[in-house]
């Protein structure tokens, strides 16, 4: 934050502000992809900027999304809130859909939702069950499609859970839950029927995955 700042930090510092949209847009970019609430400190660490500065930008964004333009009385336009809002819950910031549109969003979310798991969800669940702990990237590779949204469905349904983080890649590793076992009527994962006998050479395939990922 002062003379002691390392050179790399300085370099990065000058860059963010020069980008179109500056630090404000940089913070937005983080918020929009974050899959859990992020704290002032996390954002400050990633951007290498003072926490106080980051906090004030976040508060400012929150107000802007709510429809305050910052132009004060000069503005002739009525404040127009965005369809999303920035909420600070227990110290973490997260973008939510705006409450007023809850009925619209509910229609959208429930559209096409059924009480049954889709074939894609079932297949993804099968891969996670037999390969846990496993990253989304590896499940994608096995199934040949992006599984991000399907994994989220399984998370929402409480059938899978984030177990740990791969120490090398930093990827989140998923596994199945107690609820999953209850649904199958099993006591533990080890009671899953063995499938290895039907899969010649699959064990060695696992090694390949690790080395190429």
């Amino acid at each position, binding site marked *: 934050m002062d003379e002691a700042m390392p050179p790399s930090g300085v370099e990065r510092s000058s860059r963010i502000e020069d980008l179109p949209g500056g630090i404000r847009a940089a913070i937005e970019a983080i918020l*929009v*992809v*974050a*899959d*859990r609430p992020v704290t002032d400190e996390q954002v400050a660490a990633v951007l290498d900027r003072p926490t106080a500065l980051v906090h004030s930008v976040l508060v400012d964004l929150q107000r802007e999304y709510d429809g305050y333009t910052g132009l004060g009385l000069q503005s002739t336009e009525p404040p127009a809130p965005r369809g999303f809002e920035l909420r600070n819950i227990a110290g973490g910031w*997260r*973008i*939510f*859909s705006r409450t007023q549109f*809850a009925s619209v*969003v*509910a229609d959208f*979310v*429930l559209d096409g*939702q*059924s*009480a*049954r*798991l889709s074939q894609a969800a*079932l*297949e993804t669940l*099968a*891969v996670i*069950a*037999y*390969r846990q702990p496993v990253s989304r990237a590896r499940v994608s590779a*096995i*199934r040949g499609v992006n599984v*991000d*949204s399907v994994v*989220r469905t399984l*998370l*929402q*349904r409480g059938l899978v859970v984030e177990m740990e983080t791969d120490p090398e890649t930093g990827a989140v590793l998923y596994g199945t839950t107690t609820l999953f076992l209850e*649904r*199958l*009527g*099993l006591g533990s994962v080890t*009671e*899953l*029927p*063995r*499938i290895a006998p*039907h*899969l*010649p050479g*699959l064990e060695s395939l696992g090694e390949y995955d690790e080395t190429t990922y």
Partner: protein
Amino acid sequence: MATIAPTAEKTVFEVRLTNFSGPFDLLLNLISRRELDITEIALAEVTDEFIAHIRRIQAAEGEWKLDEASEFLVVAATLLDLKAARLLPAGAVEDEEDIALLEARDLLFARLLQYRAFKEMARHLAERFEMEDARHPRNAPLEPQFSRLLPELLWKHSPEEFAALAAKILSPRQEKPAKVSIEHLHAPPVSVRDQAVVLQNLLLARGPLSFRQLTEDADSRLLLVVRFLALLDLFRDGAISFEQAAPLSELVVRWSAGELSRPADRLTGDVEGGGIPEDGARRSVPGRIQRNGLEVARYG
């Protein structure tokens, strides 16, 4: 990647050598370093460099893997052929060998051009991958107020059904065949040398025979053609003679060398099935190119 910068230091270049992803890659690189148009240059001009480079890769990597080495050698052999042709006196053209060489060159050009096109597309794919990796879709979990609205999950799978599903997804798409058939890679090779032996045995056992008789058991056009080639070779070597009573009358083939002489052993070069054009037009045959190339390579 499009323009390869001239390399400042030899050592840098030698490090990069090992990164060529095949003989075409190396060849393209050599051509672009000399700023030659791929469609106009005589490939012979880069032959020496190509050979020198694969020698250096060999020295740097110690041992070659056999299949890897052969891929480079096929290209090297073709290049040497072309260079040898250039060294010959200009008058000595227009025989069969020269035409085969020209065809070999055209084929090499064509394959090089094709490879260049795909290399260009690969560069494009790399750019797209990089661009897309720089963007991330919004992927937030469903807000709690909405996930509470989801209908209760119906689950009807038994553990066994679930395991069967997993086995299906986790297994390779197809059952791997127990025995790998390679018949689709090459039609059964028909060797000129072998057919010469067959002809020799026929002629020695049954005396003078007509061409029709010599080929009556040929069950494919390929075999027919190879028998004919073998006859020409045997005739060239003075092992047989032809007799024809009148124009367009039947050709009789007679064994004229001694029984112990085995001229067939001197013949080399297998002709592979796929190499004979269906239309019967005279074109170079891969086996032929390879034979010439390997012979030249031995002396080069």
